[in-house]
């Protein structure tokens, strides 16, 4: 029996394998994602783009300190505030203090793996703030009191029937809808009012562009657009490895990320947010020459072990990850047991192996077969 700390891995794996709902959900989702990706790779020179993306990430990571300084300068110039934080506690405290100062009672939140990494929601909730996840999958996970199990499909481990039961229970519905469309509409209506009354919006960022200080946010649902633009305060939370050099580089990443992630040429929305938009003040229709910022913007950049990982030639690999999730959909163990069994919460799969959540190396590479060389310090076989 394999044991990791207090966890009994063997039993967890057995439980996952004998859970018929999980098996059904994974069978369906993994095959679909894998197939959709395959169908759209033909329209581009995938290998050339992958090499190019890799080069861009390598170059940016090698200049990470310099680019970080550039981001701070650009975003500040454009009316935003940047907080560079060393660890999870610092990032949490910054956001919690900001929320307190602004009298925030309700936060709408778009999907952010870094927020999962630093356990942001519980920190805000402990201070009496309502945190509303707005990505459909994340909302489902939040209502279920669970953790995401896939990088881009957080509730991939749930079947539609699981979700119907969950919504019936948590939303008090005697006669819940049964079609995916109606379930989605139910969430749209429930969350719309919360969006309109939120005091703060929190998002992640897929990329941060040093040249222009632009955040790039990739999504399909529209909840990122609302979370970032609607509340009077927008906080974007991201890891320092997300910084790339130029806006032109983004075109390369955008040719790859949606194709590999969901099999789309482009997702429904890609938001490019550069500083804080400002509006000219008019006085009875006449321009006054003055401008006001439409909202407040804070960019919170976390290190949390990333600098340590960047200094190590093997761990560094994880910082090149653009979190498309494609490796999970192709991974034999993942497709059988799902993401919760991995010991690298919240990042399942190979990219979670070095545990960028802390300088500590998680023992997960010991459970990978061929895709990840064991990281230095990681046990070759899980301790028993």
């Amino acid at each position, binding site marked *: 029996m394999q044991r990791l700390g207090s966890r009994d891995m063997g039993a967890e794996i057995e439980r996952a394998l004998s859970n018929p709902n999980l098996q059904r*959900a994974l069978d*369906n*989702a993994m095959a*679909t*994602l894998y197939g959709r990706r395959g169908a759209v790779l033909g329209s581009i020179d995938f290998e050339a783009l992958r090499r190019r993306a890799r080069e861009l990430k390598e170059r940016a990571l090698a200049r990470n300190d310099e680019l970080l300084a550039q981001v701070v300068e650009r975003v500040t110039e454009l*009316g935003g505030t940047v907080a560079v934080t060393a660890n999870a506690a610092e990032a949490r405290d910054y956001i919690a203090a900001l929320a307190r100062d602004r009298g925030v009672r309700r936060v709408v939140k778009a999907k952010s793996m870094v927020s999962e990494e630093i356990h942001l929601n519980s920190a805000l909730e402990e201070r009496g703030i309502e945190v509303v996840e*707005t990505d*459909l*999958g994340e909302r*489902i996970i939040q209502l279920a009191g669970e953790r995401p199990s896939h990088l881009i*499909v957080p*509730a991939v481990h749930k*079947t*539609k029937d699981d979700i119907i039961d969950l919504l019936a229970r948590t939303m008090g519905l005697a006669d819940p809808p049964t079609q*995916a*469309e109606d*379930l*989605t509409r139910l969430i*749209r209506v429930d969350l*719309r009012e919360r*969006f*309109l009354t939120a005091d703060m919006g929190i998002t992640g960022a897929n990329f941060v562009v040093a040249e*222009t200080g*632009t955040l790039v946010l990739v999504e*399909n*649902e*529209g*909840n990122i*657009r*609302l979370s*970032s*633009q*609607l*509340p*009077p305060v927008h906080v974007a939370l991201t890891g320092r490895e997300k910084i790339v050099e130029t*806006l*032109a580089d*983004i*075109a390369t990443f955008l*040719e790859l990320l949606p194709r590999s992630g*969901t099999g789309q*040429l*482009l*997702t*429904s*929305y*890609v*938001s*490019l*947010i*550069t*500083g*804080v*938009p*400002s*509006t*000219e003040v008019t006085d009875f229709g006449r321009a006054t020459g003055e401008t*006001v910022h*439409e*909202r407040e913007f804070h960019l919170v950049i976390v290190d949390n072990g990333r600098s340590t990982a960047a200094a190590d030639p093997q761990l560094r690999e994880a910082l090149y990850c653009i979190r498309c999730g494609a490796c999970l959909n192709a991974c034999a163990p993942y497709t059988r047991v799902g993401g919760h069994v991995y010991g690298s919460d919240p990042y399942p799969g190979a990219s979670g192996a070095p545990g960028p959540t802390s300088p500590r190396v998680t023992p997960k590479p010991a459970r990978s077969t061929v895709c990840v060389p064991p990281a230095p310090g990681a046990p070759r076989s899980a301790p028993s």
Partner: protein
Amino acid sequence: MLTDLFIQSLRACGGEASSVGAAELPRALAALVGAGGLVVVTPELESLALELAERGVECRVASRLGAGDAGLEADLRAAEVALTRGLVGIARSGTVAVGPGGGNGGLLAALAPRHVVLLGEEDIVDSLAHAMQVISERFHGLGGEAVFITGPSRTADIEMLSVVGVHGPLGLHVVVVRREAG
């Protein structure tokens, strides 16, 4: 040529698209959005709003003010159709980019159940890289948001079933405006 590809690509990802001559635009738009409830337009389209109003379309120009403004909030809640101008289109993916430029056009277009975008035929380019260049020039020294929009809002979070219309618009219609000959 690029227009045809643009229209085809946008339809392939669940959006609607049409092409009209500039002189025909007010009439064509009135037919498109006329009976669909309150149309809110961005300030840059104010003169078009007047023409639509003359044709009996219930139409309002969005307030320019930012978060916390009561007028803006009322506009955002009431809009059935958001009418905004597109900056650049990408033929291969059927993508249209809106903003930057303030005026809350982006927010309006994220909230309304239907989003109608006007895109000049000459603003359609072939690739994402090309479009990024256009946006990049727009951003030069300025703050603001630009959004690349490809079809209506959607999700596949429930058993990978494709559902259109989550938090963003349920419908997206791009009207490609042809420049008059001569």
